[in-house]
């Protein structure tokens, strides 16, 4: 086959020419910007909640029940307030400020998301690397555990486990990490297995590297781009699962300002006050999309194979 043909065929396989390649590059940049903005906003809300939030998120006010967002609020006299923008996103069925709860909820989301992702990544990477690098019975035991884990519906499992461990912040974090470590373990195991069979690992062994040092110096850098992507995904998953647990009234004792609690409450009063649910749902969607976009963009920039 002539070189011209093979060249053009390869391009054709991707779906068509440089146009698409250029747009992949552009899309990655867009993802980076969107992800950065979403994550930045989330972090700012989480870090500076006490200074940004206009009200105490747990303070109820029976005179301000189900007040609509400021721009829809045309009955100030009824609620007895002068400036609708004092409660920009309205209030819930207990008269608590939706905006303040949203901001404090971001704080909890960040705490849960980051701790879960760290714990799950740590457990998954260590166990996956052990299984992949040493093989044999270690691999057998770990792989079998992963299989059993995967045959339970994760949502049902997390609900059962939280019921067992109690509905504190720590137990929610532990439960989600315990359920999701398999995600990291599988990826790391597969990748380590693949890398181990390549020549450069043998080369490192011949030049006298110890096993842990080979793992850390030679194998992990190759898995890192994928791990970072997974890490960002995992934060999003953890935030969602926390919301789900709140939704089935099993998470951090109700009344606390979490997005899940707001959504559960909003679902009950959706016909009277849709905004109670709409804003946390929006915040959750943007957070998840932002984290996904960031993960994908980082993988594109970090992975030399994808960048080519």
């Amino acid at each position, binding site marked *: 086959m*002539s*070189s*011209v*043909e093979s060249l*053009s065929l390869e*391009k*054709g396989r991707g779906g*068509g*020419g*440089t146009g698409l390649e250029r747009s992949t590059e552009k899309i990655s940049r867009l993802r980076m910007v969107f992800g950065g903005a979403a994550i930045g906003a989330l972090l700012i809300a989480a870090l500076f909640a006490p200074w940004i939030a206009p009200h105490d998120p747990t303070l109820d006010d029976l005179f301000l029940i189900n007040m609509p967002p400021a721009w829809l609020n045309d009955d100030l006299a009824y609620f007895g307030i002068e400036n609708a923008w004092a409660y920009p996103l309205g209030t819930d069925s207990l008269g608590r400020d939706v905006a303040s709860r949203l901001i404090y909820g971001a704080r909890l989301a960040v705490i849960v998301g980051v701790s879960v992702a760290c714990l799950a990544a740590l457990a998954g990477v260590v166990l996956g690397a052990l299984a992949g690098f040493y093989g044999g019975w270690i691999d057998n035991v770990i792989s079998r555990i992963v299989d059993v884990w995967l045959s339970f519906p994760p949502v049902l499992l997390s609900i059962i486990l939280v019921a067992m461990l109690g509905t504190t912040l720590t137990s929610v974090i532990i439960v989600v990490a315990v359920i999701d470590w398999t995600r990291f373990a599988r990826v790391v195991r597969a990748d380590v297995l693949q890398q181990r069979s390549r020549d450069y690992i043998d080369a490192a062994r011949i030049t006298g590297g110890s096993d842990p040092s080979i793992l850390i110096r030679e194998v992990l850098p190759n898995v890192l781009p994928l791990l970072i992507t997974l890490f960002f995904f995992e934060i999003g998953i953890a935030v969602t699962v926390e919301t789900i647990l709140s939704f089935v009234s099993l998470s951090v004792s109700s009344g606390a300002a979490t997005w899940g609690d707001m959504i559960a409450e909003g679902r009950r009063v959706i016909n009277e006050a849709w905004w109670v649910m709409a804003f946390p749902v929006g915040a959750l969607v943007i957070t998840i999309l932002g984290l996904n976009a960031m993960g994908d963009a980082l993988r594109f920039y970090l992975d030399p194979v994808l960048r080519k």
Partner: protein
Amino acid sequence: MSLLQVDSLSLGLRGAPVLRKVNLTIEASEIAGVVGESGAGKSMLGKAILGVLPRDVTVTGGAIRLNGTDLLALRPRARRAFLKRDLALIPQDPLSALNPCRTISAQLAEVLPKGTTDAKVEVIRWLDAVRIPSATKVAKSFPHVLSGGMRQRALIAAAFASRPKLVIADEPTTALDVTVQKDVLHLIREMQRETGVGLMFVTHDLCLVAKICHSVTVMHGGRVIEQAACTDLINRPAHAYSQALLAATPRPDQARQGLEPVPTALIERMVAEAGDG
């Protein structure tokens, strides 16, 4: 009127020329060889005639006339009808040219000309014609049970079964085992003789050309270097490149002579000449 007449055909890959003003004529019942090294554009010429160019390769000028009709001027639907009726391809790689999920008979039956009464019988007749053993069983099976040589035979049957006027064989023996190359080559020549179609034989191997072709077109860098009757080219190559190409080809009648690679200086000169064209 010639069967196929390619008139100063030019192709471009995103602005870069792939073929430059190529002329080629094939008569009915003629075997026309097209030779050249990798990148000469010989396969692209075949693909252009068949209308299966890769997406980013475009026709930038010229005409392809089949029995006088310019294929490039036809609307896609009319051109497809022409393809189905008058043209066929014997592909290079038999391993990937048969759909692994469809039976041999399904892939053969669909090329039979309109009005074929008993497709099953006809398919088996064609498989017999290309000397595939136990044709009835093979017809019902999927490609993966056949060897490369058997698959190429099935593909040759498919090419001739549509009763085309022109068959384009694109390096039909290159991907095959050396032991079956000769059989397949003989089979192609035999089928051509029986059906009397025009055959365009694309190859990098002058030896094969010498064996079966009536005329030869030598290509390099997307242009035609020399066109001649086969015996003339083998015995009295006019162009320096043809001479060099010939010198680089092992010949059974001149056993154990040293082979000469095509001189780099010649290629450089030709590229320089091409540059101002």
